[in-house]
């Protein structure tokens, strides 16, 4: 074996665990028992679409022909995988109503960034690169939207929400002009409401030559019912790990394919998966492409699962969305009396309550309600998001839950509202009987310990985390 020059050779072995397999398996089994997944129980984490993850999808992704396929395999040796990618592109184009698809982005957020890069490239070719610097974002938007804008080198122009929960169109008119590159909108919005003025909004942006980006996080509400392309959007990302059931894995992986109108197709990342007769291939010859946003072609294993999910429904995907909306409205009907409902309209696949009154009258917060729900065996909803709703509780049941589950969740919500009045301490001290109680996030941020404490571990410079408690949890 060839000699490694001494200055390049490892000087001290890494301190990795030294456990035999039996103890290793026990360790990770034990860790899993201190975690809560969809398999454990109801998980109405708003904006995250925590639906059942069919196990057949895991089986299919593990087929050796997929799992052990090298990404640089010659095209002739990867026809099945390329065909799967192509068919998924076709399906997503049909579902979104936009003809050209790139599967490359690794998640929704990267889909957003990619979409904004497409805008840049599009305007650059028109010589409008300098002029168009603004991206309009409603105040209900998810944090990734503005963050993506900054990463893409654009500036954020915020726009207000009106009293019905739609974008405030007057405010919008005042802010959209020739300097506007585009809009980023989630529709239905993070309030779980479909923007009734979407057609007008489209006119406003297209009127000034700006583009419209659709954040697909809430696509689960409208599959087969209304398509972003038909709403007028030019670019959309799809969160395969939400709408199309890629398991979320405790944080990832995900998939954030984007679909675009034909005028933006030339700028899509390379390679594109193309078909020529019954042969499938990779097309790198896209002179106007923005380039690559991640390695190779995207998270293929995610494609297998999500495409399997789509094929399991076929055209009945519409029923998936209908039931998602039905479940949400049902839970809303059951719990609305006990909580504040900032926007009183039929919701879509999710709805946002406020614990404002509970807080005012009993000094009980959305966080307390969330923690108390754990005692009832439920994962809490998303809280403190969207930001415009104080003490927000954002509830998304998804279509895969049984009525019995929804009923018992609603009962718990009502019971907790009663407890807030009668025995607020019960909520403040929640959760009970978990491996740990509420953890000190401020201390964690002040004196960060982010790796196992081997003796000589250097101290990290911390930061104030005063806001730790009221920060968004979920989405």
């Amino acid at each position, binding site marked *: 074996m060839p000699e490694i020059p001494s200055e390049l050779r490892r000087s001290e072995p890494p301190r*990795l665990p030294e456990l035999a397999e039996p103890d290793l398996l026990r360790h990770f089994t034990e860790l899993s028992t201190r975690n809560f997944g969809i398999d454990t129980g109801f998980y109405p984490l708003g904006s995250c679409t925590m639906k059942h993850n069919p196990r057949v999808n895991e089986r299919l992704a593990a087929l050796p022909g997929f799992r052990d396929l090298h990404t*640089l395999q010659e095209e002739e040796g990867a026809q099945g995988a390329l065909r799967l990618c192509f068919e998924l592109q076709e399906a997503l184009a049909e579902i979104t109503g936009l003809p050209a698809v790139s599967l490359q982005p690794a998640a929704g957020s990267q889909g957003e960034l990619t979409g904004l890069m497409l805008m840049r490239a599009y305007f650059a070719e028109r010589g409008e690169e300098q002029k168009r610097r603004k991206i309009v974002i409603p105040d209900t938007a998810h944090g990734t939207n503005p963050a993506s804008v900054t990463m893409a080198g654009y500036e954020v122009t915020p726009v207000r929400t009106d009293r019905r929960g739609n974008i405030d169109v007057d405010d919008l008119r005042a802010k959209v002009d020739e300097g506007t590159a585009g809009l980023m909108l989630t529709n239905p919005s993070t309030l779980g409401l479909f923007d009734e003025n979407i057609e007008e909004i489209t006119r406003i942006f297209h009127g000034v030559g700006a583009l419209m980006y659709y954040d697909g996080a809430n696509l689960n509400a409208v599959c087969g019912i209304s398509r972003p392309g038909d709403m007028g959007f030019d670019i959309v990302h799809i969160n395969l*790990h939400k709408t199309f059931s890629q398991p979320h894995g405790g944080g990832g992986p995900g*998939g954030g394919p984007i679909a675009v109108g034909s005028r933006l197709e030339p700028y899509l990342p390379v390679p594109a998966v193309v078909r020529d007769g019954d042969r499938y291939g990779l097309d790198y010859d896209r002179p106007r492409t923005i380039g690559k946003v*991640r390695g190779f072609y995207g998270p293929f294993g995610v494609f297998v699962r999500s495409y399997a999910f789509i094929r399991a429904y076929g055209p009945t995907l519409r029923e998936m969305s209908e039931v998602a909306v039905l479940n949400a409205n049902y839970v809303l009907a059951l719990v609305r009396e006990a909580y504040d409902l900032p926007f009183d309209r039929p919701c879509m696949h999710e709805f946002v309550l406020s614990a404002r009154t509970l807080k005012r009258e009993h000094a009980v917060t959305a966080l307390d309600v969330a923690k108390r729900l754990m005692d009832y065996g439920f994962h809490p909803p998303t809280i403190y998001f969207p930001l415009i709703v104080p003490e927000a509780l954002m509830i998304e049941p998804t279509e895969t839950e049984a009525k019995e589950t929804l009923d018992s969740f609603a009962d718990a919500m009502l019971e907790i509202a009663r407890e807030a009045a009668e025995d607020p301490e019960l909520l403040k001290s929640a959760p009970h009987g978990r491996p740990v109680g509420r953890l000190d996030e401020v201390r964690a941020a002040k004196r960060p310990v982010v790796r196992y404490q081997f003796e000589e571990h250097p101290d990290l410079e911390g930061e104030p985390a005063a806001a730790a408690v009221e920060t968004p949890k979920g989405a």
Partner: protein
Amino acid sequence: MSYLALTDADRDEMLETIGVSSIEELFADLPSGVRLGRELDLPPALSEQELTAYFEELASLNAHAGSELSFLGAGLYDHYVPAIVDAVLQRGELLTAYTPYQPELSQGVLQAIFEYQTAICELTGLDVSNASGYDGTTVAADACYIAKHATGRAKVVVTEATNPQVRQVVKTYAPGFGLEVVEVPHRGGATDPDELRAAADDAACVIFQQPNVFGVLEAAPALAAAAADAEALPVAHVDLLSLGVLEAPGRYGCAIAIGEGQSAGNYLSFGGPHYGFLAARSEYVRRMPGRIVGETADAAGNRGYVLTLQTREQHIRREKATSNITTNQTLLALAGLVYLSWLGPEGLRDVGETCMALAGYAKERLGQPLVFSERTTFKEFAVRVGRPAKEAIAAARAQGVHPGYALGRDYAGMDDVLLVAVTEKRTRAEIDRLAEVLAS
């Protein structure tokens, strides 16, 4: 449709409770102009059994590591994934959980990430690791972001001997960051420290790969020193599997270490999903993109883990965040943790040595001229096959062997060059077979 739980009776009851007579009414807010008004044009629904049959057919059309003797690498490698990795990843409590926003219900994932961060810090010799990035390319862009804000400089340097996928992604991200990208050519398969030093003036960071795209061991300490001398952050793109035998980047002055985690515990899966790792010196922690898990305690003093330093992140900082990332690659990073824990320090060294020894054997055995014969290589090397590599590949594949990657795809003047990767899964007999096939 067995993914849906409601009976017809349930639906009627629920509609009544809501106070509407049909599901359509719930969509009243949708303007008619934006409604689809027809069925989706998708193939008919398939039963689980039909799904399985169809996907098995698609899978059978691919030549995978089990059906073809493969020496493909160039960034993703056919290393052995132990069964315990599958066993852990199939635990539903981990597989089907969201990002751990509620720590009391997420100690399993949180502690696992904490252990992952520890392992990455140990392997790279650095202080902090995030919970994972998308892959080995996007973490390079993340490193550029950190460096830009740490130095206030507007240029990044990348060696040409860095994997082209990585360079392409950096170039795609750079304009948004307001960064210019400069590439430094390789000289005979490795990077010249002096040349790098010259390019590094006013650079926010210098990214090099160790071992580099040709499998060659760079004079990494010298490259890091050159960067540091120009007050640019030295960034090493490394292979976790090499760090049992190769020095930890933190030990030779790197500020940041990044890389593609696939080789450690992930299947090939046609390129994803995998995990990118990113570790840095502690002073850069507040600039780091991505989730970070920290240790703390509850009121009773029980130790516990939480997402921490969140004011870096988009859900709090929004347009001022260090990144837009939210969904990451936790499950794949968990696979990495299980794999590295299964190997342990000795196992990691053994795998590295085995790969290197087998690759060494292959270099001799192939008897084809090496492109960079003077250089020390790790598990991959470049050979000239005396004809267009594409032809050599086609000919070999016809005999059931994939001989490697055609470097000409990315590097000029290398049309006759194959990049051959040899992992611990290959045997000497298989290498002999490769030699035979390439010779024929």
